[in-house]
């Protein structure tokens, strides 16, 4: 084989540090009229102060670098967890372009989703025509087994009547009479992606289980919630199989967002089979793995399906123990030795690594359910949660997080900030620094500004590949969390000791 001829190519990483570009930037300043360097420096220092923090926390009207997405993104994510289901959004097309891009960037996977492309005329006359033609085109082109409708702001502000529109589409023959078309109201100005997930899941379940109440089928339903770790879905199925529990994962996105490459593009690469989802009404129990992203759905299941329900988020050792104990009680099946061994290995990892986490102070930013799990895990390792910022958290979450912190002596410094954003967190990191920061890819700006090492856990993760393939739930998830946290501490330690006597090979 002919040897490869390589050429030295400089891209932006090196190119713009070259002298001729530095000179160009200097020349350009004449036209930019920037502030004097001293002024910039002065303001930069001021933003690190208590005084600035107070001003920052006094703001009520502007959000700066918030950590949340909007409802329809959660709705689409949920819909993509059902077999043969096309997420169908009644609204303006730009929104769907954004939802698809956002999810594509996180998972590095394709996602099909449809918009009805509402524009000015629809804003004035209503979106009926868009819905009718949209359903007809989508059904003809993409042959879905279910069209899961959610809305964007425009359809909600003008008050489109989805129920009547879907009925009209059936009457006109645009879609078959028996095609399930659940719909959820999901404007961006209410809640966040976690409420959108909840609304869509409730809509889908209530639609496809209608009239399906029958004999108990002995299964357990699992609702993962707005969980963007595909590794979690596979891990949960593996654990339930080991335990011999017949189960249905409701909104199973594992194959949708992590499908094998076979040289074939599948619009619907996986998801919960619709027949299984319809039969979920006859399950023995439903367990949600997240609370705040499943509030309405779980209430609906408890009341309407008259089913035993539980919320058991299996992140960290104690939470995972609680999950298995409850599952064992529900199913009458003992927790097998294999899982007990996994627990032992996870605890072993924690014990071996504890010295690098004990007493370390942590800041967190993310979604409510993930934060609760992570705070608990960090305290189990002897870490100290300090700043907990949750843009889409509510008062109930604030109380629950405070109660969790109160359970451990390591939680005494922890303070929870709901409805706050990453610019608030920036002030906190300057006025009361911590050792480690846990957050999504956007938190890297905090890493850059404050020097706090970042452990990337959460959503979205745009700038690191494949993290979402690893579970954070269960005992295996504990090992992954230990890995990410401890090795970030060690990377930082190596960086800091690079030119000292403490630069060790063995840690």
């Amino acid at each position, binding site marked *: 084989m002919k040897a490869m001829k390589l*050429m030295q190519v400089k891209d932006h990483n090196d190119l713009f540090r070259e002298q001729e570009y530095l000179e160009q930037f200097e020349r350009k300043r004449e036209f930019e009229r920037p502030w004097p360097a001293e002024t910039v420096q002065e303001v930069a220092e001021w933003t690190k102060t208590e005084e600035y923090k107070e001003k920052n926390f006094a703001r009520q009207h502007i*959000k700066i670098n918030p950590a949340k*997405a909007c409802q329809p993104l959660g709705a689409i994510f949920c819909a993509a967890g059902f077999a043969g289901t096309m997420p169908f959004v009644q609204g303006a097309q730009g929104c769907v372009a954004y939802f698809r891009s956002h999810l594509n960037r996180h998972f590095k996977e394709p996602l099909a989703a449809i918009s009805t492309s509402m524009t000015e005329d629809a804003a004035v006359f209503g979106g009926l025509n868009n819905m009718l033609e949209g359903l007809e085109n989508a059904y003809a082109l993409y042959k879905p087994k279910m069209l899961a409708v959610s809305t964007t702001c425009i359809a909600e502000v003008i008050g489109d009547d989805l129920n009547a529109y879907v009925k009209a589409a059936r009457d006109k023959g645009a879609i078959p009479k028996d095609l399930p078309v659940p719909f959820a109201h999901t404007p961006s100005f209410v809640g966040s992606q976690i409420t959108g997930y909840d609304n869509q899941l409730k809509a889908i379940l209530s639609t496809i289980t209608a009239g399906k109440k029958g004999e108990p089928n002995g299964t357990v339903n699992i609702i993962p919630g707005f969980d963007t770790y595909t590794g979690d879905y596979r891990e949960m199925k593996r654990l339930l199989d080991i335990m011999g529990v017949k189960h249905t994962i409701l909104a199973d996105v594992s194959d949708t967002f992590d499908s094998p490459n076979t040289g074939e593009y599948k619009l619907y690469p996986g998801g919960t089979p619709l027949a299984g989802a319809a039969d979920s009404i006859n399950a023995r129990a439903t367990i949600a793995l997240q609370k705040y992203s499943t509030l309405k759905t779980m209430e609906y299941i408890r009341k309407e399906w008259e089913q035993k329900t539980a919320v058991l988020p299996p992140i960290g050792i104690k939470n995972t123990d609680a999950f298995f104990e409850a599952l064992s009680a529900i199913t009458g099946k003992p927790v097998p030795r294999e899982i007990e061994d996994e627990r032992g290995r996870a605890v072993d990892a924690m014990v071996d690594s504890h010295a690098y986490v004990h007493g370390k102070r942590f800041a967190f930013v993310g979604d409510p359910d993930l934060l609760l799990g992570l705070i608990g895990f960090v305290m189990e390792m002897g870490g100290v949660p300090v700043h907990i910022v949750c843009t889409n958290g509510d008062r109930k979450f604030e109380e629950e997080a405070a109660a969790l912190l109160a359970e451990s002596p390591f939680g005494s410094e922890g303070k929870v900030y709901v409805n706050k954003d990453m610019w608030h967190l920036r002030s906190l990191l300057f006025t009361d620094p911590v050792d480690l920061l846990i957050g999504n890819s956007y938190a890297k700006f905090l890493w850059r*500004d404050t020097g706090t090492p970042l452990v990337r856990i959460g959503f979205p993760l745009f700038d690191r590949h494949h993290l979402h393939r690893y579970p954070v739930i269960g005992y295996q998830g504990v090992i992954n969390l230990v890995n990410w946290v401890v090795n970030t501490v060690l990377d930082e330690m190596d960086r800091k000791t690079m030119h000292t006597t403490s630069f060790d090979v063995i840690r």
Partner: protein
Amino acid sequence: MSTAIKDTQKMIEEVLEAYPEKAKKDRAKHLAANDPSGQCSACQVKSNIKSRPGVMTVRGCAYAGAKGVVWGPVKDQITVSHGPIGCGQYSWWSRRNYYNGQTGIDTFGAMQFTTDFQEKDIVYGGDKGLDAALHELKELFPLAKGIGILSECPVGLIGDDIEAVAKKVQKEFKMPIVPVRCEGFRGVSQSLGHHIANDTIKDHVLGTGQLDTSTPYDVALIGDYNIGGDAWASRKILEEMGLRVIAQWTGDASVNEMGIAHKAKLNLIHCYRSMNYICRHMEEEYGIPWVEFNFFGPTKIYESIRKIASLFDDTVKEKAEQLIAKYKPLMDEVIATYRPKLEGRKVMLYVGGLRPRHTIGAYEDLGMEVVASGYEFGHSDDYKRTYPEMKEGAVIMDDATLYELEELTRRLRPDMVGSGIKEKYSYHKLGVPFRQMHSWDYSGPYHGFDGFPVFARDMDMTVNSPTWSLIRRKK
């Protein structure tokens, strides 16, 4: 009609078979076989028309055009996404409009500012909250040189008067407060957002900046968003030609540069689609001529340099020739290295403003052929500029759907596809080499002499990655 055109038209008809009648009739107007002469009427595509509902368009919205392209990249002003959380969040630092400056202190590009509308704002209106938000921004970011208010769908629907708020606050702050009516439901794509945003530059910023000295060589570089540093690579060429770039729009742009462009002797426009409006305005209002140029790949770069130089005196013309002579050996080396690996490969493009036509020459420099090209939000003037760039019978597509892209790919069998993030991973599953031609897959620059080696390297790594051959295709 030639055989090549007939064959392509037949293929297009096959692809369209899957659509219901109404959608088929509409989509037939947007797909055509190329006639480079532009004579064949059946070969002209319709464009800038509303997408059909339910067909999975790749397009975005007016807000995306105004925020992601025109106003978002301006570095020393704050851009507020006014309305609910989503739009600002999803457009947050996704386009890599590189800039110099201290983020959060005197520059604000990589940040997301939003009024985060809640239900009460929809019911009672968001004007008061906006006024208060602007005051909070002024207090927290005293070095901001201006604030842009980019309205999202609900703001327009509930009839808020953001212009009144902006006017009031502008008087107080004595800096541009720019209301941009770019609600996503306006128009049919990003394109209207560009136009609206251009109009607000004209109304609020143009003519307000300070420039102490003037030279006959003052030019403005318009319509380069500095993705991966593109504008800097372009600027380097212009400066080496002896020109003085007094304003760079809008990648790495400052409010002052936006305010002094009217003092340029010539406007140089790269992305015609997004910024021709302001160039036309400056021509009418200030008598500034404008010229389009293309800095992708040596052939087009040489052509463009000579075209630009021809509008100046002999000093510039001489420098232009020296410049070409200086870089030609490097360009020849790039071609000698990469052309053998790429010769004869077929490319399919589906992108935004300028790339569906501007990059064709760069591919051809590497021996590659663009067999299909199309725009998400092009207008007829874009297509007119594209027909002559492509071979007879190549596919021209407007507002293509995911279904069409996939079907055309099956039939045309391109060796690589260049499109955006929403298309990228479905092509990966199909086993078709793919490169993002909006973001350069986080590489770049691709413009200018410094950009071409990066472009060539990236196309080689795309087409010739051994990973494609690992895919076990089902028989």
